[in-house]
């Protein structure tokens, strides 16, 4: 095995990762999802942002409940994985309803541009 400890950030490759690394990846996914929801004009782009947000949260749950990443008494244990399972199932259900709404909107307005949805605008 090559010796690489003289490189900067080499500890990322030689030491086990912890919860903080998973939380950072989850934070990046969450921020990308929030920005997608905020800036996309295509309604399906907004839905993709929602999926990214939910996956960022799932990464957090899995990391906090992982016995591989932490061994302290505050670990969520199996609860983290169970909650993540429920989040996956609820995200699938919500995506189905949101897509039905988008399809209805498309059938009525012939567009999926969210800027066209201004009937309730004051």
């Amino acid at each position, binding site marked *: 095995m090559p010796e690489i400890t003289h490189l900067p950030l080499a500890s*990322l490759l030689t030491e086990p990762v912890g919860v903080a690394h998973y939380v950072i990846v989850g934070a990046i996914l969450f921020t990308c999802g929030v920005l997608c929801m905020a800036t996309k004009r295509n309604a399906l782009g907004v839905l993709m942002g929602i999926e990214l947000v939910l996956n960022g949260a799932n990464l957090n749950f899995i990391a906090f409940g992982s016995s591989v990443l932490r061994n302290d008494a505050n670990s969520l244990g199996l609860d983290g994985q169970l909650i993540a399972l429920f989040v996956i199932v609820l995200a699938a259900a919500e995506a189905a309803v949101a897509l039905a709404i988008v399809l209805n909107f498309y059938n009525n307005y012939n567009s999926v541009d969210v800027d066209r949805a201004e009937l309730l605008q004051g």
Partner: protein
Amino acid sequence: MESIYWPSFFFLLFSAIACVFAVGVLVAKNIVRMAFYLVLSLSATAGLFFLAGADFVGAMQLMIYVGGTLVLLVFGVMLTSQERFLEMKTMAGDWLLGLLAGGALLFILIYAALSVPAWRGLDRAETAAFAAQQTATPLGMGLLGVRVDQLDEPDAARRAGMSGYLLPFEIVSVHLLVVLIGAAYLARAKYKRESVRE
């Protein structure tokens, strides 16, 4: 002095794929490309689940999320993207505001993640004692109401609250039924839509 710890290498690989394609979803203008980048990002997230010891949740992520929800999203993209809807530009002012807010949020989250010493990670010597644990059976039993992973909880007050996840399981089952019926009813074909004439 030390060799590469391969689980960390695979963590870096999967997280790089997930983050790069999540940024790709944000930056891409073509809706079809956004959908494909999202598929890749969520598949890499499933790999991260496997690395964290959640094998069942990783498999469910691949089956339900990537193989179900994202296929549904791609169908939605196919049904609604006529040629002129493939690219919708956002104004530059919106982008600037969004990046400022998103950057601040990301900074706060990363700062919080790095500030807890208990989250830094175990020593390499401690990881030698890990044995691969199958999580499907404890998860299934937990959904049925029996927490087989916490059978020896000494505190009587906590034991009384460990009733498992049977009620949420039933609620989610009814929820899925209602959602499927509702979505099918919402998206039914009501009348023949005139085809778009350019």
